[in-house]
């Protein structure tokens, strides 16, 4: 394992660290880094992993009715969401910027977020780009809300946020993020400068733990091999498989 840990591998390892207690992890389309993290968690804990778009039978789920119903049945423990914008209350915006509906910037749409964010107990937000453009004070459009009023049925919700700079955990009662760890090579100042929302910060912020040699071996071995089925481009780029 001569090659040093790459930023993507650190994020894979950081996300996997949040998945220890999830028995069934589902992964949406276009999520190769969370997908790899789910597979790393699987190698450690034996978790079941379902990846939308994979044709490997053990990962297969079509992202159709069955997937959403399974979430409703409580059979999915962890899922990943992203957003064009994510704000300090963990609201996510996958719809666009500006006044709805004739927005200045129009993205693809909410997909399953406005449902799965409510149903899956542990939703991990993932956004590689950590900037004031992506992590905003308040999203322009709430595709899916981070917290719900009392009385709204919501077994699920945000657990944490992983970016290229840090890991934050979300406190559902307070409705706020707390900085959990900063990736090696980055500083609290850098995180503050690039975050558009206010968040809580412990006195001493830990450094995100680097994946050890064993973890890197798993990532570059069985994870790389498995992730190539749904995400051939990613696997080629990252692992040359």
């Amino acid at each position: 394992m001569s090659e040093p840990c790459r930023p993507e591998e650190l994020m894979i390892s950081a996300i996997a660290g949040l998945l220890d207690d999830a028995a069934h992890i589902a992964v949406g389309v276009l999520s190769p880094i969370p997908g790899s993290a789910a597979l790393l968690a699987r190698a450690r804990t034996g978790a079941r992993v379902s990846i939308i778009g994979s044709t490997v039978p053990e990962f297969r789920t079509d992202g159709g009715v069955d997937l959403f119903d399974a979430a409703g049945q409580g059979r999915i423990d962890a899922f990943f969401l992203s957003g064009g914008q994510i704000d300090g209350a963990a609201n996510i915006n996958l719809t666009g910027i500006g006044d709805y509906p004739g927005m200045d910037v129009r993205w693809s749409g909410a997909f399953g977020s406005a449902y799965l964010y409510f149903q899956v107990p542990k939703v991990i937000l993932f956004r590689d780009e950590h900037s004031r453009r992506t992590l905003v004070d308040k999203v322009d459009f709430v595709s899916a809300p981070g917290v719900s009023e009392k009385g709204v049925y919501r077994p699920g919700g945000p657990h944490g946020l992983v970016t290229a700079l840090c890991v934050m955990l979300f406190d559902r009662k307070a409705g706020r993020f707390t900085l959990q760890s900063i990736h090696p090579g980055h500083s609290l100042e850098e995180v503050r400068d690039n975050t558009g929302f206010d968040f809580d910060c412990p006195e001493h912020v830990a450094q995100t733990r680097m994946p050890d040699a064993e973890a890197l071996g798993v990532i570059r071995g069985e994870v790389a091999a498995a992730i190539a089925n749904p995400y051939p481009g990613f696997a080629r780029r990252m692992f040359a498989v």
Partner: protein
Amino acid sequence: MADTEFFADADALARAIPDGAKLAVFKDCGVPMETARALVRRKARGLHLVTVPTGGMIADLLIAARCVDSIETAGVSLGEFGPARAFARAVKSGQIEIRDTTCPAIYSGLQAGEKGIPFMPMRGLIGSDILKARTDYALIGNPFAQNDPIVAVPAIRPDIALIHVALADRSGNLWVGRQSEQKIMAHAAHRTFATAEKIVDDNLLENEQLAAAGLSSLYVSAIAPAPGGAWPLDMPGHYGTDRRHMKDYARVSGNDDAFTAYLAEHVLKKPAAAE
């Protein structure tokens, strides 16, 4: 209940789809691309698309070719090939009416249509701006609990479910394979129009293995042969995605001149089916 009508090709089938029809199309594995191209060729206008539950190239193409007045969708994107620029531009300019929602709400609406009930309760959505915009959705109480609001998604009954399948038979039955959502679409829609890779003589419902994924002719109004009918998208067991073509399409999407050239080359003159 009229018998299933057989058409010579997708163009003949598309001529039987009226302007202004509300069409349901499935997200992948059996996207009726050749029918969409035939709709562009016949200059269809005023279509209302319901993507099940999301849309890709088919929605983007029909919108760019100005066939569409409105779209109900959980999202439109070309996936790994990039954003659906024609869609985004049409939403921004108001060229089409957008009815945003979330994937399971499309399924819930179709399943309500399938059951002949006026609505389906659905968890989630509360507190989102999607629900605020969907004034046709309602918030109701759970009669079995105190203070437990839940969204009522109204039934969706498309005029036509538009699908592309691997197999059809001469009796009008279809084989939809893993895509059981195509059955929901067909049940919910008033009529189903299908193109098929292949039309076989033997009754598909007589084969115990195939019957489980069969859709009875009861639901099927029209069938036309269209080998390669999902191209450039994939058709499992037949052909994969034409990735080079998708990259080309992603480049022309939302660019008027390039799209006009694309139409001329790949749509207005019927292309050879991909294998």
